C-alpha cells in the first residue's frame, strides 16, 4: 500500500506545492497529489470529504470551520501582482496608484492613456488603447485577496471569490495559469496573478501604491516587509486576511494561503501534518526561490502546537 | 400418381406475407414425386420462391406470415405429417435436415471448406470425428467437387469460384442425407460451364433424393426436369409431365409464357 494523500484547491500556491510534493516524494516516497483547481473547488471538495486536504486562499471563519468540522492553518505567504502586456513598457516601469487600480477594475478607467494612470507615469508613452482586464473564470482565493485590497480603496467592489467585474473588456482564464496565459497572449491587457507566475514567465508587473502612498515594486523584500504586519492566532484557527498592511516599504497585496483538514480523518491528517512538518523544515528555500514568503518561525511553532492540541500530529 | 410415389404433397396451400393485404399463393395443389425432378416456372413475382420456401418453412425466420392448407412430407411408409403444423424448434431442425435448400447466390459460410460441410453434421448432433470426416468426403464426392478441393480442405471457402461455391453448398446439403432438395435458381448467377456442371450434378443426385427446382431458363427446365409446374400471379396454372407442358400445354397462358410472349 503506497501512501497517497489527495488534495485539491487553491492555485495561488500551486507552483510551490508542486515543488514541495515532488521533493517530498523523492525524499520519502509518499505521494501527495495536489490538484490546483481553485479555492472554491478546494472548500467544496473538503466539505464533501472528497479529498484528504484542501488548499484555500480565503480563510474560513470559525463559524464555517465548526459547521463543516474542519481544521485550518496557513502554509506560506504569497503576493498578488498586477501583470501587464504593454508594448515598450518594461517590468516595473508602470506605476499604478490605488485610484488607478480600482478604476481599472471597476470600469471607470477604460483606456491606457487615462489621466489617472498617466499622472504617475510621466516618462512613459501610454497608448490610447482600451484596457483588457484579465480575471479569473473560476472561484479563487487570489481573487478574494485581490478584491479585499480593492475593497479597501473602493467599497463598491465586493470582497468575493468570484465577483461580477464591471470593467469594460474582461477576459477570464481558469486558475492563475489561465490568467497569466491570457496576459501573455493579449496586447494591452492587465491582470492580477500570483507573484511566482510573473517570475517564471517573465511578465511585467506594476509598482503599486501602498497604504502609506508609496509606489512599491513587487519584490521578495517588499513582501517580507509586508508579512511582518500579519498577526496569527491559533485561537481562531489562524484566521487572518493580511492584505494592505501598514509600513512604508510593504507591498500592499499580500496573502496567506491555508490548508483545511477534516476533523474526523485522524489518520490521514497525521500524514498531512507530517508532510507539512517536512515543508516547514525543508521547504523554505524552494518557497523563496519561487517568490513566496515562508512563515515566520514563531508562527510555525504556533501551528505545531495547534496540531498537538487537535491531536493530529 | 398414388401416395407412395410422392415424397411431398402441397394441398390447398395459401400463403400471405406478414403485412401483405393479399395472399402471394392461392390454393396451390402440387405433388412432388419421389426421386424425380420437379421444375417450377413462371414470370418474376409469380410466387415460385414463396412456394419453394414454404416447403422447408424457411419463411419462419421472419414472423407474421400466414399459412393455410397443408404441405405433407411422406416417410418411407407413405405416412405423411403436415409440416405446417410444426411448432417446436427441434421439429423445425429435423424438417430442415430432411428438406435441404440451395439458393440462387452461393452461400458458403465464413469458414474452411471442410468445416462448411462438417458444420451441418455437427448441428445434427454427430460428434464422432471419423464419421464426420467420412461423410464430408462422401458428400464432396457426391457433389462432384472432391477433386478440386481435396488438397485445400482447410482453406477458406471464400476462395472458391462461384460455381465451386455452389457445388460446395450442394455438398453441404447432401451431407445431411436429406429426402428432398429445393433449388432456387441455382445457376442463374453462374457462367455456362459451371451451369453445365451443376445441371449434371442435379441430374445425378435424383438417384438419392427428390428435387424441386425453380428456374427462369426454359431450356433448363425442359432439359432437366421430369415434371413442370407453371405458376402465374400466385396461382398454379398448369402441372404435368415436362414434355407435355412444353410441347402441348393445355392452357393458353402457359404457351404464351413458354414461347416467350411475356416474362
Amino acid at each position, binding site marked *: 500500500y*503506497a501512501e*497517497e494523500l*489527495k488534495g485539491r484547491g487553491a492555485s495561488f500556491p500551486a507552483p510551490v506545492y508542486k515543488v514541495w*510534493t*515532488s521533493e517530498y*516524494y523523492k525524499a520519502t516516497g509518499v*505521494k501527495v*497529489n*495536489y*490538484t490546483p483547481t481553485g479555492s472554491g473547488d478546494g472548500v467544496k471538495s473538503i466539505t*464533501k*470529504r*472528497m*479529498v484528504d486536504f484542501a488548499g484555500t486562499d480565503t480563510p474560513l471563519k470559525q463559524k464555517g470551520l465548526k459547521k463543516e468540522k474542519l481544521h485550518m492553518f496557513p502554509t506560506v505567504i504569497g503576493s498578488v501582482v498586477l501583470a501587464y502586456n504593454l508594448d515598450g513598457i518594461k517590468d516595473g516601469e508602470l506605476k499604478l496608484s490605488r485610484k488607478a487600480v480600482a478604476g481599472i477594475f471597476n470600469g471607470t478607467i477604460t483606456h491606457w492613456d487615462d489621466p489617472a494612470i498617466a499622472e504617475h507615469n510621466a516618462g512613459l508613452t501610454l497608448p490610447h488603447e482600451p484596457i483588457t482586464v484579465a480575471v479569473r473564470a473560476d472561484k479563487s482565493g487570489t481573487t478574494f485577496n485581490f478584491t479585499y485590497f480593492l475593497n479597501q480603496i473602493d467599497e463598491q467592489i465586493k470582497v468575493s471569490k468570484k465577483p461580477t467585474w464591471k470593467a469594460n473588456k474582461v477576459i477570464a*482564464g*481558469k*486558475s492563475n*495559469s*489561465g490568467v*497569466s*496565459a491570457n496576459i*501573455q497572449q493579449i496586447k494591452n491587457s492587465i491582470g492580477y496573478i500570483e507573484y511566482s*507566475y510573473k517570475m*517564471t*514567465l517573465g511578465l511585467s508587473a506594476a509598482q503599486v501604491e501602498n497604504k502609506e502612498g508609496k509606489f512599491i515594486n513587487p519584490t521578495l523584500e517588499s513582501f517580507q516587509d509586508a508579512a511582518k504586519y500579519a498577526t496569527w492566532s491559533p485561537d481562531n484557527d489562524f484566521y487572518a486576511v493580511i492584505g494592505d498592511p501598514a509600513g512604508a516599504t510593504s507591498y500592499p497585496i499580500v496573502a496567506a494561503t491555508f490548508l483545511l483538514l477534516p476533523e474526523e480523518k485522524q489518520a490521514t491528517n497525521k500524514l498531512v501534518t507530517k508532510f507539512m512538518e517536512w515543508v516547514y523544515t525543508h521547504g523554505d528555500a524552494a518557497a523563496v526561490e519561487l517568490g513566496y514568503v515562508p512563515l515566520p518561525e514563531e508562527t510555525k511553532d504556533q501551528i505545531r502546537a495547534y496540531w498537538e492540541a487537535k491531536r493530529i500530529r | 400418381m398414388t401416395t407412395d410415389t410422392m415424397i411431398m404433397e402441397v394441398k390447398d396451400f395459401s400463403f400471405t406475407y406478414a403485412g401483405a393485404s393479399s395472399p402471394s399463393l392461392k390454393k396451390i395443389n402440387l405433388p412432388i414425386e419421389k426421386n424425380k425432378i420437379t421444375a417450377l416456372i413462371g414470370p418474376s413475382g409469380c410466387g415460385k420462391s414463396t412456394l419453394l420456401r414454404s416447403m*422447408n418453412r*424457411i419463411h419462419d*425466420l*421472419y*414472423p*407474421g406470415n400466414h399459412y393455410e392448407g397443408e404441405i405433407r412430407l411422406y416417410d418411407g411408409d407413405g405416412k405423411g405429417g403436415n409440416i405446417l403444423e410444426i411448432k417446436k*424448434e427441434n421439429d*423445425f*431442425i*429435423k424438417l*430442415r*435436415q430432411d428438406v*435441404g*435448400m440451395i*439458393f*440462387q*447466390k452461393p*452461400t458458403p*459460410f*465464413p*469458414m474452411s471448406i471442410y468445416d462448411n460441410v462438417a*458444420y*451441418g453434421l455437427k*448441428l*445434427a448432433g454427430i460428434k464422432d470425428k471419423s464419421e464426420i470426416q467420412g461423410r464430408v468426403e462422401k458428400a464432396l464426392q457426391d457433389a462432384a467437387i472432391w477433386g478440386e478441393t481435396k488438397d485445400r480442405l482447410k482453406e477458406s471457402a471464400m476462395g472458391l469460384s462461384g460455381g465451386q461455391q455452389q457445388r460446395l*453448398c450442394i455438398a*453441404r*446439403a447432401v451431407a*445431411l442425407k436429406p429426402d428432398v432438395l429445393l433449388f432456387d435458381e441455382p445457376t442463374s448467377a453462374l457462367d455456362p460451364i459451371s451451369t453445365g456442371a451443376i445441371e449434371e450434378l442435379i441430374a445425378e443426385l435424383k438417384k438419392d433424393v427428390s428435387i424441386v427446382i425453380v428456374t427462369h431458363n426454359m431450356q433448363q427446365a425442359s432439359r432437366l426436369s421430369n415434371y413442370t409446374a407453371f405458376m402465374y400471379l400466385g396461382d398454379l396454372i398448369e402441372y404435368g409431365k415436362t414434355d407435355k407442358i412444353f410441347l402441348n400445354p393445355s392452357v393458353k397462358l402457359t404457351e404464351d409464357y413458354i414461347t416467350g410472349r411475356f416474362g
Partner: protein
Amino acid sequence: MNRLFLNKAILMLSTLSAVIGLGFLLWILITLSYKGIMSLHWSTFTNDLVEGGIRNLLVGQFTMALMASAIAVPIGMLAGIYLREYSNNGKLAAVMRNLSDVMMSAPSIVIGVFVFALLVDPFGGYNGWAGIVALAIMMIPIIISTTDNMLSLVPQELREAGMALGGSKHKIILQIVVKAAKVGITTGVLLSFARIIGETAPLLFTSANNQFFTMDLTEQFPSLTVSIYNLATYPDEASRELAWAASFVLTMVVLLINLVGRFITRSKK
C-alpha cells in the same frame, strides 16, 4: 456560355473547399508534430507527471479506455445483435435504434455531469471507475450502431442457409453471422476505442487527474487528456512543452488506431 461558366466556378469552389480542409489538417498536424517532437524526450515516457513526464498519464488513459471497452463491447455487441437479429425490425427496434443514436450524440460534458452525480458525489471522491463508466456510456452506442450496421451487411441468404441446414437461431448468429461480420465489427470497435481515448470532457469531473502513477481505480486517476487541459493553460514553458508532447503522443495514438482499423478493413476485403 453562362451555365458552363457557373459550372466551372462551382467546381472550382468545391475543389477549393477540399484544399482548405486539407490545408487545415496539414497545418494542425505540422505544428503539432513540430511542437510535439521538439518537446519529446525519452524521459517524457519514463517519468510520471510529477517528474515532468507522461508515463502515468498514458497508462491511466489506456487503462480507463480499455476497461471502458471491456464493459461497452459486450453490451454494445449484444444490443446490436438484438436489434438486427431478434427484434424483427419492428417499432420497438426502431425506437431503440433511434435512442441509441441520440445517446451517441449526447454532449460528452453532460455525460460527465451525469456520472459525477451518480458515481462521484455519493461516493465522496473522484475516481477511476467513474471515468471508466463515463467512457463506456460514450462507447456503447457507437458499438451498437457498428454491430447493427455490420450485421445488416451480412447477406440474408447466409442466415437462411444456416437455417436450412438445421441450425438454431443463436448458433447461427454466433457461429456464422457474427463471424461473417467479424472484420467490420473489429474495425468499429477499434474506431470507437480511438474515439474515447481522446475524450476529455467526460473525465473532467469523474476521474479528474493524478500526478502519480496509480492503478487504484477508487482514486483520482491519471489521464493524458485532462492533463493536457491543465498543462496547456499553465504559463510556464515546461508545462506547455509537456502539453504539446502529450498532445502529439495522443494524436499519434488516435491516428494510428484509425489507420490500423482502415488497414484491417481493406486487407480483408
